[in-house]
């Protein structure tokens, strides 16, 4: 799954650590999601999208080629 978290973080001038604290996860989790190594749960995806004030589809893009 591709995502635009890094873009939205840059738009909000936020570090990974700050975003992680805001949504209650570790910085490594944000990093892993950004790098595409970890697909977040639906709940976490909603938290991230809600935090940035957008819909899930605007941040996360389903990549059929990369899906397990």
């Amino acid at each position, binding site marked *: 799954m591709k995502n635009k978290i890094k873009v939205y973080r840059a738009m909000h001038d936020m*570090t*990974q650590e700050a975003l992680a604290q805001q949504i*209650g*996860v*570790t910085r*490594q*989790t944000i*990093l*892993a999601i*950004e*790098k595409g*190594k*970890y697909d*977040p*749960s639906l709940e*976490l995806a909603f938290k991230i999208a809600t935090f940035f004030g957008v819909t899930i589809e605007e941040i996360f893009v389903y990549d059929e080629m990369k899906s397990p």
Partner: protein
Amino acid sequence: MKQNTFYLLLGLIGLLEVGLFGISVLLKNPLIITAGFIMGIGLLYIARMTITDLKEDERSTMITQKAGFRTLEVFWVLFFAVSLGSAVIGFSTPLGLPHPKNMPPDFPRDEPHLGYFGIIQMILLCCIAFLYIGFRVYYARKYGEWDSDEE
């Protein structure tokens, strides 16, 4: 409780268990170490629930679960194989009946097998601990535990 305090408690309980094991062997009473071990682990589980600075989220929980599941997948096969072997030895003995005369020299003896099985179990458990650590490291790497970013 801080996480470091928990690790201190873990070490202390570990030492106590070693002491209890020694006392059990000296007094030839297996109940002491069995009860002591269960109480020690119970105490650790309760103490773990009181840790306040534990950094856990869904990704770390998933890594723990996957490593645990894979370890169990391997463990049950090894454990069952050893148990089957032990059962064969157990059923090959006279099962408490008086020893028949003129037994072949390679006939399995029936006395200390239970104790030996316990030692094999402990060795297996130690191997499983290493296996779990291996799987944990594998999944932690897979899910970006030690990745670094430009930040």
